[in-house]
């Protein structure tokens, strides 16, 4: 087990170095940040002077080595736009994104699990069709559309929730629903499929034959066996929720990493973009590792080595 974890951490370090390298060079392909920083009527001389002051006129390989050297000490550099430490800017925004992602995941799970169970148990019924159509709608509709509709309904027609910003549970509800509706659909559908498959297994027939109530059969036998792929999907969704909140954060003026990412890319703020991408990659790696470890807990047949 320990060997497995150490090996995975080693792999993760290699992935991080590769990603850092790719992002460093890809960033620079998008163009020069100096022209974005300067007003449109600035001269070429202005651009050269600012490039020099920001160290952007150094040979690329030197800039790369400087960046990787900093990374080894967890120093992600200075933002070109905010002119302050990248790590502290990211850490300032991280709690808001984590709050939104947690809210979205809770919303998704609370609805997806019962919806998946009902749809599987009543397979082919009107309830199944209705539920699956409804969650499919959540998967298809883009965040800016769901978000705007929710604002319209819950901030204007029935004015009970704020339209934007952060500040307590009331502010979290609409963005969490908007962001979570995609995950809700993904989780509900995979749970339904898995449950239907599990319902055909011998041990379910045995459980029923023993005279166990339907509830016990579903909760104790079927759900646990169907949950392995669901856990994988939930793990992936956590990564997506952290990284994919850009539209939701924009619609609801939510002060998280999504908005920061958009601004950093727009401004060609290389160090900030690098820092954010590395954070997202690290999150994915950690969640994947946790999911793998969780497999062993859920299914004793899985051995980690």
């Amino acid at each position: 087990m320990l060997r497995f974890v150490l090996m995975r951490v080693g792999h993760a370090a290699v992935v991080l170095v590769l990603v850092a390298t790719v992002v460093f060079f890809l960033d620079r392909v998008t163009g020069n940040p100096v022209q974005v920083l300067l007003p449109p009527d600035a001269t070429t001389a202005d651009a050269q002077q600012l490039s020099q002051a920001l160290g952007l006129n150094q040979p690329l390989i030197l800039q790369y080595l400087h960046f990787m050297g900093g990374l080894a000490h967890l120093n992600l550099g200075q933002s070109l736009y905010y002119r302050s430490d990248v790590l502290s800017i990211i850490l300032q925004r991280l709690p808001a994104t984590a709050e939104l992602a947690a809210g979205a995941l809770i919303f998704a799970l609370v609805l997806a699990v019962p919806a998946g169970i009902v749809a599987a148990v009543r397979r082919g019924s009107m309830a199944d069709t209705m539920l699956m159509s409804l969650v499919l709608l959540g998967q298809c509709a883009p965040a800016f559309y769901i978000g705007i509709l929710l604002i319209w309904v819950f901030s204007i027609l029935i004015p009970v929730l704020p339209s934007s910003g952060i500040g307590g549970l009331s502010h979290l509800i609409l963005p969490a629903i908007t962001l979570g509706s995609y995950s809700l659909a993904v989780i509900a559908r995979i749970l339904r499929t898995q449950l239907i498959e599990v319902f055909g297994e011998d041990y379910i027939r045995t459980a029923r034959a023993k005279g166990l109530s339907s509830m016990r059969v579903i909760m104790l036998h079927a759900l646990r066996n169907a949950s392995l792929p669901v856990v994988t999907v939930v793990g992936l969704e956590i990564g997506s929720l952290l990284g994919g909140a850009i539209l939701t954060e924009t619609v609801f003026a939510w002060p998280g990493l999504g908005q920061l990412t958009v601004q950093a890319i727009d401004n060609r703020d290389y160090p900030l973009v690098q820092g954010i991408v590395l954070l997202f990659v690290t999150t994915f790696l950690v969640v994947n590792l946790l999911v793998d470890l969780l497999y062993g807990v859920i299914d004793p047949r899985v051995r980690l080595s």
Partner: protein
Amino acid sequence: MRPVQLRSTQRRPVSRRDFIRTSALAAAGGSIALAGCSTSSSKPSTKAPGKSSGTLTMSQPADATTMDPQLQGDVADMNILINMFDCLTTRDSQNRLVPQLATSWRAVNPTTWRFTLRKGVKFHNGEPFNASVVKYSIERMLNPATASPIVEFKDAGVTGVNIIDEYTADIVSNAPTPIIPQQSALFDGVMVPPNYIEEKGAAYFAKNPVGTGPFKFVGWQPGVQVSMEANPHYWAGAPALSQLIVKPVPDSATALASLQSGELDMVTGLVGSDVKPLVGASGIKIVSVPGIRVYFVDIDTETAGPLTDVRVRQALNYAIDVNALVQVVLSGYGQRIATLFPSNAFGYSSKVSPFPYDPAKAKQLLAEAGYPHGFSTAMSANATNATLLQAIAGQLANVGVNVSQKTYAVQTFTELDYVNHGSALGPTYVVNNSGWSMDGYSYLQSYIRPTSRSSRWNNAQATQLVTSEQTSVNPATRQNAFDGLQSLMVEQAPFIFLYVSDLVLPMSTQVNFKPNALGMQAMTNASIASIT
């Protein structure tokens, strides 16, 4: 988890008309006006004479990036910082250049401007304002190590400041500089506290700003809001508002929703088409003034082809129905201009008129130039001008000029414009240019002289006239040069001249605020009526 000031709920009733208007737009999935509920500010009931009262909350599309006024160049930062810092000069609500921290100014010679400074002014930390502050501030901005993106003084060749006495300072340059006072109303002329910065360090200053302005810094929650409070000791008297809050709300539909619900009192950073759905909404007024952003099409007049012929270029101008463009692209919030100047800029010539919309004349001129069936060309624009590009291409097609369109991301477009006079952008491209100094100098500096960044017009007379306005400090001489330039531009048509867009500010009817053309929201004189 983040402390956000909660404000007592105040909502405007949503009328049936509002409902239908917004529902239809919501269904279309477009940029729409929606209202939200909120915790909204309890506005103090009455304003005692001479005292600040009321909280005004306004939004802008982006968050602030720094509180150091010399390290920024974005309207999002300026909107905030202009309320905490003063410049040497300023523009009043009629756009007149008026004293701020300088009480008077004059050109001692073409390379030296002398400013007499206001006495008795103190920074929010008590530090006095005097000529040493002017020297420190301007030389800090010019110092390459500061890496300031503010360029007007640098481009004008300003080399430093000489202190004449405690309240007199000379701004000196290595070339004639006609518009130093106008540029001093921008952040080139912003005054920062020397002792505070030296003592606390630049990084601390960038998070804890101290200025001489009407509002004092209270707090900055990144991505949430910047809060300011009235400076009761402001040299011009305390501002009418007791609190000013600026929130970043990137989505225009959300911002307008929050305005309708009372979460916001004013929304900035929008264009005319954004606010169209709000026209007639209850409790909302839309204040608009002619701005400083002009739109035109840059033409390559030098590379062989139809565009080298003046008749063809005139034909392109006759073929465009600019008033229709203003309606389509800006929902009417704009004005046609004859050349590259809006009428609120110094140097504007009332002697020139815009090309009338006359497609028949355009076809005739094209035939005379040897293109009776028109010709094909290309035009590019940045993504924000995509609608304008489409509309122009459609109108030119009506006279036989087929335009292949290319749209670039804003940043890519700007970058291409820097290289080889924008040649990579093709034979024609749509430009929007802001004349921050409100002087013809700014409108022309990149486009006329053949060596200028985006110039693709080599005309000896124009070069001589632009040299005259750029090197003289005599207003009459400069006006003559500008008059000549504008006549020459209409005659030679080196651009397709379009319009100047309005500054559009939707706000609550409770707000009393008259913006000037610059678009930086200096709220010194803004007030908000009581809601009880």
